[in-house]
């Protein structure tokens, strides 16, 4: 039995001949929690939509996606349907648009149970109630027959999570699950995700642009830029000493809630248009450390010490200096 639950190998996606994903290699181990960070359009959602065969027909997907060692890229629909929700479940940013507005909530959860676990009637209802309890819907019994619009945004997201758990998935992909929610509700949902993972032992991929949220729920992070992974490592490694200038730039650009108030350090320029990607490293036009070689050759993702990966010709210098500089900043 292969050690990894999901293995993506050289996954490429193009829409109408415009390549948006340039070969993603990514493994998700059993029970691990992986964060995928990047700005809009960097391909973090597309990666997983492609892996699950959820992209529209005009997208051309190449490469390999293995779930438990079985190739699923280009697999027949019946096999994909077994994997989706059964093995790998996905929840999205806007819960109210993922729920069917004209079906009662209990029926929607029961439907998922019927498809994936062949539970019907009373058994399905009992299990649906258990799931609703588990995700923290108060008074589940009386709210079983309500419609989605009768729940608030945070509760709809909880219901989506309950549906995702219906198939007892090995992997939950959460695509910006808290972006549309208020601050205090976001904290509740993050807490719930952490707790559910501890209870069920499932793996999780957490897609977000919010580095703060990612660091709360994940153990490992991949930073993506313009359809490529540029840096990968554990939360501690990446947050204490980011080596890729883009990762570093992302950290600097986030306003802080503690420490002295200071001017933000933005990354100059904008994300490149996938139709006209710059020559060489896609980040080079915005990078303060770019050298000649960055503008001509694409750096490959290389393995580094401590299980980290980095794709950069001129990385941010070694941790000790960077860390010292940061300590000085705060002193």
């Amino acid at each position: 039995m292969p050690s990894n639950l999901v293995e993506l190998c050289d996954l490429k996606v193009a829409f109408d001949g415009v390549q948006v994903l340039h070969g993603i290699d990514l493994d998700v181990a059993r029970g691990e929690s992986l964060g995928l960070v990047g700005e809009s359009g960097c391909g973090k959602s597309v990666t997983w939509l492609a892996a699950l065969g959820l992209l529209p027909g005009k997208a051309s997907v190449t490469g390999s996606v293995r779930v438990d060692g079985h190739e699923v890229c280009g697999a027949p629909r019946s096999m994909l349907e077994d994997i989706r929700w059964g093995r790998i479940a996905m929840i999205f940013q806007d819960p109210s648009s993922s729920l069917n507005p004209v079906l009662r909530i209990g029926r929607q959860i029961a439907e998922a149970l019927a498809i994936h676990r062949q539970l019907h009637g009373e058994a399905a209802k009992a299990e649906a109630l258990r799931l609703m309890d588990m995700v923290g819907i108060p008074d589940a019994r009386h709210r079983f027959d309500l419609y989605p619009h009768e729940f608030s945004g945070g509760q709809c997201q909880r219901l989506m999570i309950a549906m995702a758990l219906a198939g007892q998935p090995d992997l939950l992909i959460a695509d910006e699950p808290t972006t549309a929610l208020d601050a205090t509700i976001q904290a509740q949902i993050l807490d719930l995700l952490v707790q559910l993972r501890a209870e069920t032992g499932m793996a999780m991929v957490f897609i977000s642009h919010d580095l703060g949220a990612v660091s709360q729920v994940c153990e490992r992070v991949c930073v993506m830029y313009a359809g490529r992974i540029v840096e990968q490592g554990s939360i501690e490694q990446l947050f204490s000493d980011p080596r890729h200038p883009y990762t570093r730039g992302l950290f600097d650009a986030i306003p802080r809630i503690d420490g002295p108030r200071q001017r933000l350090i933005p990354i100059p320029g904008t994300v490149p248009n996938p139709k006209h990607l710059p020559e060489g490293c896609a980040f080079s036009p915005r990078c303060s450390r770019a050298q000649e070689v960055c503008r001509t050759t694409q750096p490959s993702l290389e393995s580094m010490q401590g299980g980290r990966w980095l794709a950069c010709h001129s990385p941010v210098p070694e941790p000790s200096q960077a860390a010292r500089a940061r300590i000085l900043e705060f002193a």
Partner: protein
Amino acid sequence: MTKSLIEARGLVRIYQVRRGLFGQPTPVRAVDGVSLGVRPGETLGIVGESGSGKSTLGRMLLGIDPAQSGEVQFEGKPLPRFGTPEWRALRASMQLVYQDPLAALDRRLTIAAQIGEPLAIHDIGRKEERAARVEELMSAVGLRRDQANRYPHELSGGQRQRAVIARALASNPRLLVCDEPVSALDVSIQAQVVNMLRDLQEQRRIAMVFISHDLKVVRNMADRVAVMYLGRIVEEASSDVIFQSPQHPYTKALVSSVPVPGKVLQGRMILQGEPPNPANRPSGCAFHPRCPVAADICRKSAPPLRPIGRERTAACHLIQGETAPIAA
């Protein structure tokens, strides 16, 4: 202490909301007795969750949404009624920036034409000078000269927001109300726009009301911060103080709910439940059903906003004015 540029006293805005197709309209107090003041060149941040009335408050300050009770004074004079010629003239000195720049821009006009529109509306400068003024505004917000004849869809999100801000600055306003101006932007672009707003404000001494749900951004922009919950201000203090030592339990929860990069989830104060429906306001302190320290008195009477320290107010029964004696 300098006098306030804009001052609001006891603002109330009630919407009639119908529940269901034939339901009785019920009054919703979106803004419920809010008083605040902004001095020239100062930034007041307003934070709160959705439905707390922060956007309505922003619109009321500009007179777009009429107040049912209370009044707004701009430079010591009461705000003229919405739609009157006096109000229109005054709008040149108070402008609004929305969250979604694509919705705020006319997609059939080039951005140069749109930035120049306020000049024509308020009859500022001679026609020949206007083109030069537009160019100056564009460079002030960091747009390139060759982008003048682009249409909104040809620009990125950050550039569109810059165009909206340039347009708002065209009439040399003294007050700028920004309603979630950077919420739709990516982190790296957000930082660019936040820095730009701060620079523009410092150069032009514009007073700003900065409405956002993102505490981190507000902390960076605002001199003073007011926290709203269900239509009322529950705490107000300088932005350094309020984030370092929040006093009101709701502010405490808000501050602790902000995920800090690199710190694992622990010891955070996570609120139970959701913000209540404004149409169905809890009795007493509106926050008491979610409040971890609520006492009997909180269920019975609503706490007034009272001073709890130097230039610092909060509305909570359980906060003692320990830092300074309460001056009535």
